[in-house]
């Protein structure tokens, strides 16, 4: 397959996945905002999210006095900001358009329709609309995934698209966790239990029921972290994402890629065999930063081995 084609497929999937995870982050904020919390807590939460996404500086530049409303608009609807959900959906569609001959017609049509429909959102940031928007983004992402899995030939195109999905997902889960850890929440004058705040994160990641099944006890930060990092079976954990990534990476092996496979395998092994206490000895956010750095390293290696011109 052409390197450029592989590159477009990889980014197509990354952008779809990124849009979905941004929607999940907004979902967490939306749910938190319904809990009885002090008004400052709301903005602290947004600050933690923007920091974990590395978008704080950009946000302050555009909205020096920005509050929750601006933050929401910035992450969801701002078409001039390449990191917003609407921009991601448009980028996913542009990448698909560049390789529309390689993806199935159904997949292209799904992404195109998502983009066409997305142009109707963004005028209103009333909460009810935001809730609908979040649901819509997740639904379109589910649909895209279903069409991908249900129609695409299991060839290189599929594998490169999958690699994009899983590397983005692993990264996003670390950022969601990081935002939660960095948010002091209701600390001090506590109106809401810590458990409810963490339960919100689980729900945003569609992992609340799973948590109950696995632990059968109350929600604690440590267990949520363990579940989302190390559990091998829930689809959005870092461990699972790396496992799925590794599987697809092996299928596109070429004469240059051995070192990249080793690098990915080593990272995966830390999640497969590591203990949370040891991995996070220096602090959870510190470990998450380290993982994000490693994932970046992996992404550049994949780029160099497969996606840029030989």
């Amino acid at each position, binding site marked *: 397959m*052409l390197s450029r084609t*592989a590159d477009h497929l990889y980014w197509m999937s990354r952008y779809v996945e990124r849009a979905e995870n941004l929607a999940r982050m907004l979902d967490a904020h939306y749910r938190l905002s319904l809990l009885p919390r002090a008004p400052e807590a709301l903005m602290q939460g947004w600050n933690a999210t923007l920091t974990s996404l590395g978008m704080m500086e950009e946000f302050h530049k555009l909205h020096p006095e920005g509050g929750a409303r601006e933050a929401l608009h910035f992450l969801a609807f701002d078409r001039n900001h390449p990191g917003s959900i609407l921009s991601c959906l448009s980028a996913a569609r542009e990448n698909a358009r560049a390789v*529309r001959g390689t993806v199935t017609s159904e997949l292209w*049509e799904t992404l195109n329709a998502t983009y066409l429909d997305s142009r109707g959102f963004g005028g209103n940031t009333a909460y009810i609309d935001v809730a609908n928007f979040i649901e819509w983004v997740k639904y379109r992402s589910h649909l895209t995934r279903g069409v991908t899995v249900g129609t695409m030939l299991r060839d290189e195109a599929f594998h490169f698209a999958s690699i994009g999905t899983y590397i983005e997902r692993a990264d996003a889960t670390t950022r969601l966790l990081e935002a939660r850890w960095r948010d002091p929440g209701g600390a001090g004058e506590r109106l809401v239990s810590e458990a409810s705040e963490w339960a919100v994160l689980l729900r945003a990641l569609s992992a609340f029921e799973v948590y109950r099944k696995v632990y059968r006890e109350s929600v604690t930060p440590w267990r949520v972290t363990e579940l989302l990092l190390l559990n091998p079976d829930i689809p959005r954990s870092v461990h699972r994402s790396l496992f799925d990534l590794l599987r697809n990476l092996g299928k596109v092996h070429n*004469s240059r890629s051995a070192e990249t496979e080793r690098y990915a395998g080593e990272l995966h092994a830390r999640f497969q065999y590591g203990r949370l206490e040891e991995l996070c000895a220096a602090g959870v956010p510190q470990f998450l930063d380290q993982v994000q750095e490693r994932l970046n390293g992996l992404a550049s290696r994949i780029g160099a081995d497969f996606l840029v011109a030989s």
Partner: protein
Amino acid sequence: MSGKPYDEMLDAQGAPRPHCRRYMDWLQQQPAELLAAKRAEADALFHRVGITFAVYGEEAGTERLIPFDIVPRVLPQDEWRRLETGLKQRVRALNAFIADIYHDQDILRAGRVPADYLLCNAQYRPEMQGIDVPGGIYAHIAGIDVVRADDGAFYVLEDNLRVPSGVSYMLEDRKMMMRLFPDLFTQNSIASVEHYPDVLLENLKSVAPQGVTDPKVMLLTPGAYNSAYFEHAFLAQQMGIELVEGQDLFVRDDFLFARTTRGPQRVDVIYRRIDDDFLDPLAFRSDSVLGVPGLLTVYRAGHVTIANAIGTGIADDKSVYPYVPEMIRFYLGEEPVIANVPTWILRRPEDLAHVLAHLPDLVVKEVHGAGGYGMLIGPAATQAQIEDFRLKIVAHPERYIAQPTLALSTSPTFTERGLAPRHIDLRPFVLSGREITIVPGGLTRVALREGSLVVNSSQGGGTKDTWVLGS
């Protein structure tokens, strides 16, 4: 040639022509709401599928639909047979002409075509002189624009031998028609067109460089922002070949390679949808980033086939068009089956004088113009436009040809005020490989504005499904 236009479906008395009777009966039985719903459905489907084209001069990334009309254009079997014979004859002669021009130039020495017309023409590529191409074929894909005049006869209006486009609309229009009105296809015997991509791929393979047994064919596009990108992606997908941009290809040791996830891969045949000028920055325009540096060297070494060949523009230039009937006589010893539209060549003083005296009645075309840009339609122009054009002609008569204003035939078409006649043309796609093949019919373009004669999509034209009926 300027009487009442010929209607493709209705005779002079307004009754359906025999071959359209069954369709018109059916149409009359359809409730208006149903037809309106079907038209809306077609629009929605085309949008979702992304069958759009970009319009030059509009905001970047603007995508528009080409309007689709749900009334088909119907050709009876015997008319198609005659057209097919004439088209094959014409393309055979055109290929022979290009081969001759780039080799011995017999036709020039015989004085049948003026030499200075050709050798001083910007479309003549001296780089091609003496190069042998596989099978002696230059125009592998030809789009020949055919119109029917008020006398009921077909004329060739224009030959497109460089990178003719539109075939994807022929295929998508048929798919749409079958989806909207499946009954029609069981009631009528309509020749299929779906096999076009297979025939095209077979043809491209058949002209691979000598000695290549399993040729690797790729489609070269200028990229996603080109107005015809949809078609490029569509054809590549239908043929199951890679869609490449210039940056995906490179030249090493006189061979052409693609950059792939598994390293360099040899390329044997390029179906290019890029103009000559942009193909190779080392040989042609040095500022081109669309092409592949060194491609011409590989071509000259015979290690890659480019379809269409470089330099085919020499045969579809509007200044050369008047000589095509002469080519048919010279190379094939036959009389043309389909006539040319009578044409005045304005660098001839007597033609110029005649045209200047009759500007309000004529169509004047720029010799190098395309896409309906840069032409004067006398009867539709204002006095000021005519005078403006007159100055341009007098300044550079050699840049123009003129033709009588043809009363292009019409076909019933859906408009905002119901069915009404609109002018149409036909672009059949003629494929030349080991043999010449034409998928029955072609692309019918329709001028949707009342009275308009311009069918180009960039100028508000639409398309129709084209039926060739079985006997």
